[in-house]
């Protein structure tokens, strides 16, 4: 066991998978010698595997993703490092028209491709570096979306993502970076599409994603003191979504608050709420509450930014409205 940060756990996952499978390689901006990625998740890999397998690219997201799709179609297992999810806009043709190749060609090719990117606000890095775009990306179709909430999950999920024969979008929240966790020395995998109950409770279910899981957990701890028992469910994957675990929890508690860090219109939280309204209506003992962001670009001002991102108080207030 080793106490690791999220980026270190991800680094281990890349290392293990590159060692295991020579077809695995990474391409992206600033992932090599000088930086090892904006949070250091690729540090040391270029020294170990060389510039052919850790390929520094020009500043062109279109080239990174287009190249990765071509390599995957040709039989390689690329990881496209997009830095911040906001930059996916530059490669949106590849996202919405080319990634769907496996489906469009009737399954004749595999597309074993992982897109890794950082998401989230909280660093005053303004709207073009702070988005999460979860709900927006859920509508793209043709790719799996993985959103870990801690280092342990991140490592196991990233390894499964790399081994998956379909395009996977792996999104790490920046604010999870300083969180450390004991990571086992032996190898482990976490299957995609399996939610995790991060905390058990009886009065209300909170379904939260990525960093919001941590916020929900501290809200749950606070509410415990007031005698409100909160169950926190982390879907871990937005696609495929583990409906069974979510609906099972709602059946138990009768109440649900969904939380995600993206604008409420078409947010991940709104989409999960819609699923519960449709498939779990008879379990509900109260209206569904959706906690997400205002319909504005992420503010640069630290004061406005902290107002923009859902916090403990927002979650507690939502829970109290339905209990």
């Amino acid at each position, binding site marked *: 066991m080793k106490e690791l940060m999220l980026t270190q756990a991800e680094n281990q996952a890349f290392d293990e998978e590159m060692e295991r499978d020579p077809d695995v390689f990474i391409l992206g901006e600033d992932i090599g010698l000088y930086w090892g990625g904006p949070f250091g998740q690729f540090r040391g890999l270029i020294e170990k595997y060389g510039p052919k397998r850790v390929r520094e690219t020009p500043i062109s997201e279109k080239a990174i993703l287009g190249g990765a799709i071509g390599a995957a179609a040709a039989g390689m297992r690329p990881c496209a490092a997009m830095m911040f999810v906001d930059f996916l806009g530059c490669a949106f043709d590849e996202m919405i028209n080319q990634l769907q190749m496996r489906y469009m060609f009737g399954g004749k090719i595999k597309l074993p491709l992982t897109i890794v990117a950082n998401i989230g606000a909280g660093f005053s890095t303004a709207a073009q570096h702070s988005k999460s775009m979860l709900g927006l990306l859920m509508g793209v179709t043709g790719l799996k979306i993985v959103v870990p909430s801690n280092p342990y999950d991140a490592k196991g999920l990233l390894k499964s993502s790399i081994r998956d024969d379909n395009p996977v979008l792996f999104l790490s929240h920046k604010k999870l970076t300083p969180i450390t966790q004991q990571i086992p020395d032996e190898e482990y995998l976490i299957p995609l599409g399996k939610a995790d109950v991060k905390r058990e409770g009886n009065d209300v279910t909170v379904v939260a994603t990525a960093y919001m899981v941590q916020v929900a957990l501290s809200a749950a701890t606070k509410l415990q003191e007031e005698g409100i028992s909160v169950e926190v469910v982390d879907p871990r994957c937005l696609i495929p979504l583990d409906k069974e675990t979510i609906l099972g929890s709602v059946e138990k508690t*009768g109440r649900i608050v969904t939380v995600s860090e993206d604008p409420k219109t078409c947010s991940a939280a709104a989409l999960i709420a819609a699923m519960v309204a449709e498939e779990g*209506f008879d379990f509900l*003992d109260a209206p569904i509450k959706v906690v997400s962001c205002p319909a504005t670009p992420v503010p640069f001002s630290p004061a406005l930014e902290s107002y923009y991102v859902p916090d403990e108080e927002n979650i507690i207030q939502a829970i109290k409205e339905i209990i």
Partner: protein
Amino acid sequence: MSIPIKIAKIGWGTDPVELVEWRAGEGGRVENDSVILAVTTKKIESDIHAEGDGYLHIVVPEGLKAEIGSVVGYIAETEEELKKIQGENPTDSGVTVEKEEDSIDETSVPEAVSRRSRKGEGIRISPVARKMAEENNIDISSITGTGPGGRIVRKDIENAIEDSKKPGVSSNMQPGKNVKSTIPLRGMRKAIAENMYQSISSSAQLTLMGEIDMTEVVKLRETLKAQFVDSITFTDIFVFVVAKALKEHPIINSSLEDNEIKIWENINIGIATAVDEGLIVPVVKDADKKPLSLISREIKALAGKAREGKLDFEDIEYGTFTITNMGALGEGYRFETVIINGHECAILGTGGISDRVVARDGEIVIRPVMTFYFTYDHRIITGAVAGAFTETVRKLLENPYLLIISKEDI
């Protein structure tokens, strides 16, 4: 082709029947002629049989009521067909009334019981609470919600279910009065409760009481018992005698319906019969046209079926008058104000026979005496008519030789 499972029209009854138990589950395999559904109405349980082999699709689940003529389920021939039917006719929780053209009864305009007019519409209640309330037959209009904004939530329904198990005691239970056990008011018990309350609250009932010297009837019965293998009971004799008396006083054999008094052609005498679950009234049809021996046999057969809970609808239908004989409770000089059964206009109760001191021809003698109590609907029957009828009954019982010749013969 799928076969719809319909609630058949049963006698006079136009009230919805309650679905007691589906004998197969959703999608379950059923065989032709097997019992697939138990229903209850008017104090009686009845079985509905499958009219073909196939897979069952339930439209109206157990515990809910269904209108006469409505379709409560289907039998699909194949599994594909089952899926199709399930899609087209989802299992309902609010009773979808699907009336077939040919079974619409002019006289019965069923209460519209559809999703739209479901009871409690507009009440703030959570989905799970509404579902639980429906499953447990809880009337949500009587519940005060404790959720945010006064919404009825799961906890409120759980409390209501808990309360419904306590007889006559609401959630604010009085201290010093604890519930030992509860009996749910449903099936026969519910029917009795509704019928008795309906009867006494919708007519002008009063009771005429008196006593009858049973010396000759006791003798008659002993003589008959010595002659027949089947013993003739007092009840048999009462039915025989009352049928003759009703023929003489046709107004007693009537009902007030649709703003007119209907005097019935048939004299069908119901006999109140105690069973484990309560009370049921099997009917001897055309009692005035039957010999005593046949009446006796029929009553024995009906009583046997009643005890085993196997009475059919036709056994309890079409009564025009009822006799309730309390003699079985044993000796004892007692009176009771019996309540008229159903839409009839009178009922005759008979008490036990006991030796009493009476005056006869200026002498004090001891005679076997039976009390009787005749409850009648004063809207139809005046005191004089009631007196004349009971006088006929008394005369025939005190002097059964009169039965040899009827008035019509003279």
